[in-house]
């Protein structure tokens, strides 16, 4: 690890496809925790494939940290695939709820700024408005910065979610003529898929 330590620290975005088994989240977070890698955000949800969940993790660290994390993740039996978003173009979004303090004098201005950011008002209180903002990190940070002078009472962020751009799916998928999709099943499910995948980890890095 020491050999990588001069690289700059930055946010790294990973997507992980996992079998939806008990403790899978623990396995993954424990792996990061044990090595002292700090997870900045983590979001998990089901995918279109039964039994398979997708998580997006943001880790702060240098490339060495992320490469080691990916290789360790690859060893987990429940992990179907790890996608390193720094290697390909991707789209990412985050949803944030922001509760901003208002007074009769600031109310109009706050609403105007929120409109410029195309946010939605999801709750109206006597002394506060709650906005729903979606977007990439830049937009969300900019919105929060604009609102800060008025007084931010609370925020909650979902964490980033990401997909690679283009028409390839991250799991080999068959699309039927009626639009239905199905995962292409490996011969011996799970174990074989993992071994097959392990085979294709590049030899040179």
């Amino acid at each position: 690890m020491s050999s990588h330590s001069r690289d700059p620290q930055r946010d790294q975005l990973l997507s992980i496809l996992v079998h939806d088994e008990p403790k899978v989240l623990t396995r993954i977070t424990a792996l990061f925790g044990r090595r002292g890698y700090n997870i900045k955000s983590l979001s998990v949800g089901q995918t279109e494939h039964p039994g398979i969940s997708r998580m997006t993790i943001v880790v702060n660290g240098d490339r060495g940290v992320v490469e080691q994390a990916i290789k360790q993740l690859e060893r987990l039996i429940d992990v179907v695939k790890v996608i390193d978003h720094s290697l390909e173009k991707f789209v990412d979004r985050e949803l944030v709820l922001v509760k901003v303090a208002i007074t009769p004098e600031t109310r109009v201005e706050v609403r105007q700024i929120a409109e410029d950011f195309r946010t939605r008002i999801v709750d109206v209180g006597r002394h506060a408005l709650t906005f729903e903002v979606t977007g990439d990190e830049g937009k969300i940070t900019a919105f929060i910065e604009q609102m800060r002078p008025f007084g931010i009472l609370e925020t909650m962020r979902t964490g980033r979610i990401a997909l690679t751009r283009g028409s390839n799916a991250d799991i080999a998928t068959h699309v039927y003529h009626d639009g239905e999709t199905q995962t292409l099943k490996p011969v011996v499910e799970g174990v074989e898929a993992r071994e097959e995948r392990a085979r294709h980890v590049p030899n040179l890095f």
Partner: protein
Amino acid sequence: MTGAKALWATLANHGITTVFGYPGGAIMPVYDALTFYPEVRHILTRHEQGAAHAAEGWAKATGQLGVCMATSGPGATNLVTGLADAMLDSVPLLAITGNVARHLMGTDAFQEADITGITLPITKHNFVVREVEDIPRVLSEAIYIARTGRPGPVLVDIPKDVQLAAFHGELLPPLPRRDALKPAPEVVERAQEVLRSARRPVMMLGGGALDAAQEVTQLARAWNVPVSTTLMGLGAFPASDPLWLGMPGMHGSVAANRAISDADVLLSIGMRFDDRVTGRVNGFAPHAQIIHVELDAAEIGKIVRTHVPVRGDAKETARALLAGAARLEHPEWDAQIAEWKSRTQTPDHWGAGYAIKAVCDRLTPDDILSSDVGQHQMIAAQEARFEKPRRWLNSGGLGTMGFGFPAAIGAALAEPGVRSVVIAGDGGFQMTAQELATLKHANIRNVKICIVNNSFLGMVRQWQELFHEKRYSEVWLGDSNPDFVKLAAAYDVPAYRATTADDLPAAIDAWLDDPNSALLEVVVPNEHGVFPMVPAGAALYEMIETEPGRTPDLSDEMEKAAEEANNA
């Protein structure tokens, strides 16, 4: 058929003949069903840790899967040390635990422990079987995972009601084994290019090379590359070969550590650059281009910078590298190595080293030698000469005291025709001494126990001597050790004792010639150290080659290491 019977039927289908275990409430249905499966032999150890290490000993000696079993809660947690040990040494191990019934799980029921949660970081994978029909599939997958790729321990936890439930599913055949991973041809070419340029080459072999011993030996001879085998890799290359340098690392040989430090090309196969092997990482093989052959991608580049990372099976890769072999001539390097080798000192006065050498000299290449953990382990690693792989059983990664004796039992059962010798310290032996009873229970006659009794937790004492100004804190056992000969007698195990160099040969004869498993206690002077030694935090080339005498004259590096140890 019940789930419990499906379990035994599946194990039998996988060719499993021996299981080490200990019963209890939450696994009683499995023990009940056992009586219907005489083709599987259950060995009742006297502690679950003993069962786990015995299964490891079986696996380490044969390369085949070891199986152990325990009840829920305390039974399961007693397996933990063995699982962690198997994880760090990549041992194929299947652990089966009972658990409380499904409706009680999560309620802190009697003898409930979240064993899958507890063992998450120390198993390759683990499972809870929630439906009885899943028993054969989960066991097959568990066995497959334990044996495939880089081997490791897998735990399968089965609630009691699942063991009891009626099973109507299918008994599955074992999953097909996969082909070994072949390295990419362009990487092999690059490795060969680098090898060809070498003027001071060294090869390092770890536990991952054991099953490729023949291939790596051919490879080293064809390229004419000197070889160092790690603690885990001893036996992957014949010790009698002039190319052998000995073991590297903290208690490695002068020749191995000096050669690695001066090498210009280092070809390492199936090893993971443990800190006991590398010493200070930024001082490790500072002049070498490193070619790292590994099956597990996560090991490549983890500790040291690798110039040619080769992902592949050791056997396949050794074959591929052999195909383009070009014999390297390096007379100056050979001369230098010969000089380093000549610095090796053989123990010539009475003490642990002298006794262990005498025992090792009596071993044949077929004998299996296990060791426990401590000074005696490092001395045995230095003195024993292995010609074949899987004759040296050790707790390398975890350094588990109490490992040696039960591991020797496991190996003795795996290979009843072979002598299974264990060298243990007076400290570590007492951690699993209760397994003396297992010898009688399973009628095991080929275990030979040698206790090197220095009345100290010797290795800790050595560090206290060197780095803590001889403050011998809680390491003296002399006032409270049992009479080991009487202890053995209590278990009906014949025992012998030697207390001087003159006694030793006759005692060894009597001990080895005894038709039964037998114990030999060797009482040695208590303030000896193991040298050479690379102090923790120092580089391999900063090794202390010989025992510094009773008042060590600390070099600058050692002062620094001592300071670090004190601050840690």
